[in-house]
């Protein structure tokens, strides 16, 4: 794609419209058009955010959320890819697992929370399980489709060299289906972030999700918005990291 260096053709213009929106928001607050308790001005939110950073209170929840996400997402990616390849390369495993996958996949994961509470308790295990359950299915499906969609000639060629099954997976199937695996992981990234926050709201004693809910319940709206800003930055950073990783892993694949 010719425009890949600057895909959107926006460049420095990117800051203009958010700045305008923030100005209107600030102005509306100052002129008393909005309820300052329910919708604090941007400057107030920034001040709350600055206080949060200055006090160091930002660190523990941030570490909690990032840690939970990294562990959950990594597990989801590994499990999803593993089962996806297994199902795509072995008919027996496909027959064994496909009905189960099809049964579990459409269940909205938040509905499983009570079951997880029962078996894993209210804490880390439940939260990680929630993220893994949400993230693994997109990776699994995408991996499966990726492997199944591989060029038969490629596999045929590999077969003539009589290489072992594990080598075949490691050096041919995995790299060739990597773009699809990564596409699934991109979906899982968004879902994982959603579930991390949800899990923290339901089962954590710490973390950004917990903070947001806790602050809402005590009506400390300004600080709640500060945390939401942190969350947006965190989400954007995660997506950026993923973009960079994808570009390095699959350089031949343009933007998607």
């Amino acid at each position, binding site marked *: 794609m010719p425009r890949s260096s600057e895909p959107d053709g926006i460049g420095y213009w990117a800051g203009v419209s958010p700045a305008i929106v923030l100005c209107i928001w600030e102005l509306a607050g100052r002129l008393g058009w909005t309820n300052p*308790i*329910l919708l604090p001005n941007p400057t107030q939110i920034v001040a709350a955010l600055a206080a949060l950073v200055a006090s160091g209170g930002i660190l523990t929840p941030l570490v909690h959320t990032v840690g939970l996400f990294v562990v959950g997402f990594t597990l989801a990616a590994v499990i999803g890819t593993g089962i996806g390849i297994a199902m795509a390369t072995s008919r027996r495993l496909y027959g064994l697992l496909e009905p189960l996958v099809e049964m579990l996949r459409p269940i909205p994961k938040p509905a499983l929370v009570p079951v997880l*509470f*029962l078996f894993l308790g*209210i804490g880390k295990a439940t939260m990680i399980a929630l993220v893994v359950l949400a993230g693994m299915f997109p990776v699994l499906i995408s991996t499966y489709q990726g492997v199944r969609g591989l060029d038969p000639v490629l596999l045929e060629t590999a077969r003539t060299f009589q290489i072992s099954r594990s080598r075949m997976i490691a050096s041919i199937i995995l790299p060739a289906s990597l773009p699809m695996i990564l596409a699934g992981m991109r979906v899982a990234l968004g879902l994982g972030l959603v579930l991390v926050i949800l899990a923290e709201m339901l089962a954590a004693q710490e973390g950004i999700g917990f903070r947001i809910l806790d602050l809402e319940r*005590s*009506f400390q709206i300004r600080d709640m918005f500060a945390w939401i800003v942190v969350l947006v930055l965190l989400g954007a950073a995660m997506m950026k990291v993923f973009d960079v990783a994808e570009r390095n892993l699959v350089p031949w694949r343009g933007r998607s």
Partner: protein
Amino acid sequence: MRRSLLSIGLAMIWLLAVPVSRTQAADLEKIRVSIIPIGDVAPLFAAIQNGYFRELGLEIDTTPSAGGAAGIPGLVGGSFDIAYGNVVSALLAAQQGLDVKVIAAGTNVTDPKLDATGIFVKSDGGIKSGKDLEGKSIGVNTRNNVIWLYARAWVKATGGDPERVTFKEVPFPQMEDALRQQRVDAAFMVPPFSAVAEQKGGLSKVGSPYSDIQPGVDVGQYITTGKVLAAKPEAVRKFVTGLRKGVEWYNANLTNEALLTLISGYTKADVALLKLVPVPTAPLRTDVSQVRKTMDMMIDSKLLPAPLDLDKIIDSQAL
């Protein structure tokens, strides 16, 4: 939009079909009330079922919020005219500058024998007091709220330091399992969960924070906003009147099977389950001195930085 069109359509059909009672029904003013589907709001439902509100020209539209999480935020957001909520939430909202007003009493705990809430532990765990819980954990439904506040007070009152006890958030339905699986060392449980857990055995109640710490505590209130109060003072006054009649009926029928059927109707809980739970009397009026005690405890636990002007928060008609 579609719903309003539909309701207009239905209303027109109904108007054509039942012209006789038309005036009576058309005058009903609709009041939206957020409730928690538990025994606490039985007087409200009694008043609805017995037609007390209709006699006054009100139609009560109840919206359940499990656990009450959406009550006061929804009230502030304008979804409700009135919300049933707990005293601590109301004071927290007021402290942040939100214009909340307590207009009627909801529940209080006067008789320790009828207080089904409590701190539960495993019978064989050897925990008897707050002192024993230092370095251990107590399950509460939410931190920084009413259950948490009284659990802390109970720990302190029984010789423990609340700062050295970990309070873990566990939803009420999961409390019993969390305790039995020893994911918490103690749990603040409320009915019907407490009654079911007690009946199964293995757990013992070591304290009743409400009735131990503050006999007569006003736990629940009906809350509105200053805006609603200014916009429809008459409707709010009628609501309080109707609710009081409901409270009177409720208090006169505590042992009546009809009450359990009523509660079962809006909680989905079996009548057999409800029979396990003691039915406490309901208050007619809010006791400001009790609210003040709660407020002092909140200051003590650093939930509030300074006392609030309760006269501004508790509307005179609640008294």
